[in-house]
């Protein structure tokens, strides 16, 4: 794949914690409108990489460019405003709020009214709230969360919360969606739902998806491109069929999960 066309370019990123490298010279390109998967054994640095992209960690060196804009040194909220959304591995919802409020929060930057207008909650402020509420309702329909709309998130089941987490990332109206193990701990039926959502996201909304997932079956099925990390280093990349046969990848997984 040509790196020039890439939406997100990760170039020679090193991330170290007190001398210990979590990521070493990782270079990755992510194409717009495609599903890119990052796989690797536990502790390979997948989540660290996502953290670097979304700004929770600051890469020690190297550069991460999104549509030509340097992300290293930016805070998560700034990166989120550029159009990168993130669904977390360990659900990071606002557990005291309803599903609706969780999603409305993701519209924060899209709600264009000033603090003083909010004091009166009339006119522009009210209209903005209604317009964005309609958008959120669209996402609720899309992610099939209608019945949970007013439920407090903390009281929902794990599978539903995972789905809310994804819905919230989607509500940000991103150009790039980072999904960190969206299917972890789910049963087969729930996994199928999520896979369907991911494919729909790509097809209907034209959003590029970066997927971290342990279920290699799913990864090989839906990914357009796969990167493999081990011990913080990129050991392989390519279309799923090529990666699956890569000897380096097989070695990395021996003793861990078997390939397919």
């Amino acid at each position: 794949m040509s790196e020039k066309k890439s939406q997100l370019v990760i170039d020679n990123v090193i991330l170290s914690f007190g001398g210990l490298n979590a990521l070493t010279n990782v270079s990755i390109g992510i194409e717009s409108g495609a599903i890119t998967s990052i796989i690797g054994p536990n502790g390979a640095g997948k989540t660290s990489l996502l953290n670097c992209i979304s700004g929770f960690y600051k890469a020690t060196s190297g550069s991460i460019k999104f549509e030509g804009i340097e992300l290293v040194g930016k805070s998560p909220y700034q990166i989120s405003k550029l159009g990168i959304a993130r669904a977390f591995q360990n659900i990071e919802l606002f557990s005291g709020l309803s599903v609706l409020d969780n999603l409305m929060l993701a519209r924060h930057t899209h709600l264009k009214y000033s603090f003083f207008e909010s004091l009166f909650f009339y006119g522009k402020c009210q209209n903005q709230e209604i317009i964005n509420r309609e958008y959120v309702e669209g996402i609720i329909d899309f992610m099939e969360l209608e019945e949970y709309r007013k439920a407090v998130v903390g009281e929902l089941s794990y599978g539903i919360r995972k789905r809310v987490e994804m819905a919230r990332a989607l509500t940000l109206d991103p150009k790039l969606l980072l999904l960190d193990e969206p299917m972890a701990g789910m049963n087969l039926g729930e996994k199928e739902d999520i896979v369907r959502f991911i494919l729909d996201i790509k097809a209907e909304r034209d959003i590029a998806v970066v997927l971290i997932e342990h279920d290699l079956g799913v990864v090989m099925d839906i990914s357009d491109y796969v990167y493999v990390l081990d011990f913080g280093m990129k050991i392989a990349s390519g279309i799923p069929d090529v990666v699956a046969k890569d000897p380096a990848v097989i070695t990395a997984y021996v003793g861990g999960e078997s390939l397919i």
Partner: protein
Amino acid sequence: MAYFLQLLITGISIGSIYALAALGFVLIYKSSRVINFAQGELIAIGAFIIYALTVWVHIPIWISLVITILISYFIGLGIERTFLRPMIGQPIISVIMVTIGLANLLSGLVFFTPFGTLPARYPDFLPDPIRFGGLIIKWEQIVGILITTIFITILMWFFTKSTLGISMRAVADDQMASLSVGVSVKKVFALAWATAAMSAAAAGFVVGSLFGLEFGSLTAIGLRVFPVVVLGGLDSIAGAVIGGIIIGVLEQLATGYLDGIVPGGGTGDVFPFVVLIIILLIKPYGLFGTVEIERV
């Protein structure tokens, strides 16, 4: 020069009191992330029990000290069991506010005893101050520094050698992981409070023997602990000790040199808190505090 040295000596001796008080504070924070606003009241209660045992029951003061430290152990356990244990699982800020309520409650209870208004002193139990070259060192100051040293040595030994101590460190590092290897987190919290009460009682003894037992001044130390722990780092035992001594010395130097310049003086009261703000702005996790890395 003698003046400076004298300020230094007083500063170190006051600093060692702060260190003792901060020690318990840090232990509680380290194990449960709770900021304890009742540390000052614990100090006062310890100091009063020693007085009661010495003056009313006529037990020699050193034995009173030991007995009081033992009693404080149970006071700490009791407080944890009654007020903190029901709060496990609640948001941290609620737990912190429980300690604010606890501070109120304890000071109320103190007023049910004669100590609320009684400005008392321990009977003299140490010889006259040592004087040389214009310097005056009180025995109480030496005793204070000694007690702090002993306390810290025991704690250091406890944390590195004993199983319980190691499990406390484990809990401080990672509560979930410790639970999974069978460490009782509840026991560790209880122990943290017990130790905090014990070190507070020791601090109370030193304050009492140096400056008398006035409830207001004793509880005021509870507030001085904040600059100390912010300087040292909220979760560092070494930080509590070094921070305590630095704040003690700074406070004395401020009183010694700035009060003459600033109209009205009283800079010793506010200087530690100015230091606190500056540290928060330039080195938020203190000298020895752990910079928190967040996992998402």
